[in-house]
C-alpha cells in the first residue's frame, strides 16, 4: 500500500530540471488562459480558504481527443521517474499561476480532482519546475466534508504523486516567481494497487 501522498525531490537530473525550467520561462510557448475556479465546476469544491486565482495552461499530451505537443520528449525523463507502472497515459499539462502579493495568507484554489469521473487506478502527479511559494494543498473527504490534510511547497525537481481521486488544490504564489507545475494523469497497472 502506497502512502496517501508520495513526495520525491530531485526526481530528474539537475540538467533536466534546468531544461524544463528554461523551456517554461524562456520559450515562446502557447499558454491558454483559464479561470481555475470555473475550470473545475462541478467537481471543484468550495472551501473556506478557497481563492479565485487565474491560471494559464499549456497542453502537452491528451489521450482523448488525441493531442501530442512536439515538446513531449522533454517530459520523458519525468515519465521515467514516476515509480508506478503506467498502463495508459491520459494527460500531461503544464499550469502557470502568476503571483498575486495580495492573496490571503494560506488561501488556495478550488479543491478538485482532475477528471469529472476519475477512472479506477487513476494516478495524479504534480512536478514543480521551479521554486515558488504556491503550495499544493491535499484534502481528505469524510462524510462529505473536505478537510485540509497536507501542504506541499513547490520546489524545483520535486514531484508529488497521489491517488487521482484525492481532492487537491493549487495556490497562487505571492513571490515574484510564477508557480509552474507539470501535471500528469495516468491509469496505473492494476498490480500496483491503489496509492
Amino acid at each position, binding site marked *: 500500500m502506497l502512502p496517501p501522498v508520495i513526495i520525491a525531490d530531485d526526481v530528474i537530473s539537475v540538467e533536466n530540471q534546468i531544461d524544463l525550467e528554461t523551456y517554461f520561462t524562456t520559450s515562446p510557448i502557447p499558454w491558454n488562459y483559464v479561470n481555475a475556479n470555473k475550470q473545475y465546476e462541478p467537481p471543484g469544491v468550495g472551501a473556506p480558504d478557497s481563492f479565485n486565482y487565474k491560471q494559464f495552461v499549456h497542453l502537452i499530451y491528451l489521450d482523448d481527443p488525441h493531442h*501530442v505537443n512536439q515538446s513531449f520528449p522533454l517530459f520523458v525523463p519525468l515519465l521515467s521517474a514516476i515509480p508506478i507502472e503506467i498502463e495508459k497515459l491520459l494527460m500531461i499539462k503544464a499550469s502557470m499561476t502568476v503571483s498575486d502579493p495580495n492573496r490571503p495568507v494560506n488561501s488556495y484554489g478550488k479543491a478538485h480532482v482532475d477528471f469529472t469521473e476519475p477512472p479506477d487506478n487513476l494516478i495524479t502527479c504534480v512536478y514543480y519546475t521551479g521554486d515558488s511559494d504556491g503550495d499544493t494543498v491535499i484534502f481528505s473527504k469524510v462524510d462529505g466534508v473536505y478537510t485540509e490534510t497536507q501542504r506541499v511547497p513547490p520546489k524545483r525537481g520535486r514531484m508529488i504523486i497521489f491517488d487521482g481521486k484525492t481532492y487537491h488544490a493549487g495556490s497562487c504564489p505571492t513571490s515574484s516567481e510564477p508557480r509552474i507545475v507539470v501535471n500528469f494523469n495516468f491509469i496505473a497497472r492494476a498490480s500496483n494497487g491503489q496509492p
Partner: protein
Amino acid sequence: MQILTLDNELFSLNNLPDEVDENTRFAVLDNSDPKEPDFFFMPLVFLESFNAPAMVLRIGNDEVTMPIDWSIAVGDSSSACDIEVLPLTSLNDRGFEALIFNPLSSFRVEFKKIEIVNFYSDVKWYFPKMKNGQLLATPLNSEPKPNCAYFVKEISRQSEIIQLDRIL
C-alpha cells in the same frame, strides 16, 4: 520493430513466424569506423527482447513506432551537413529531419520532417543484435523499395557523427 531485407522489403520482427529463413539478412549503416561508413546486410542470427515505452513518429507521410530510449540519425535538408545521431528524447520540436535512404534502391539521400504523434507506455520489442556503431535501417512502410530511417539503441560518442560524403 522492422528491418530491411535483401529482397528490399520490410520484415516485421513484431510478428515473427515459427521459423525464419536462415538466409534472412537485415540492413545496417555501419559507422563503427567513422572514416569508412558503409551499408551492410547482416545475418539475422540473434534477436534481443525488451520492454520499453514507445513513441510513434511521423516521418514525412509514414509512421513508425520506436522505443523511447533509442536514437535516430538526423540531418538538415537545407545544408549538406553531417548526419548526427540524436536521442529521440532530444527531438523536442527543434526542427531536425530524419535521414532517409534505401541502401538498395535510393539514388540520393533525403531528409524528412519528424513529428511525434503518439506514446505507448509499455511495448514488447524484438530487435536484431548489432555491433557497436551500427544503425538499423528501419523501413517506414510496407511498400516495395521502402524508404528507411536509421535508429540505434546506444551509440558511442566516437560514432555519433556520420560523415555523409564518405557514404555516397
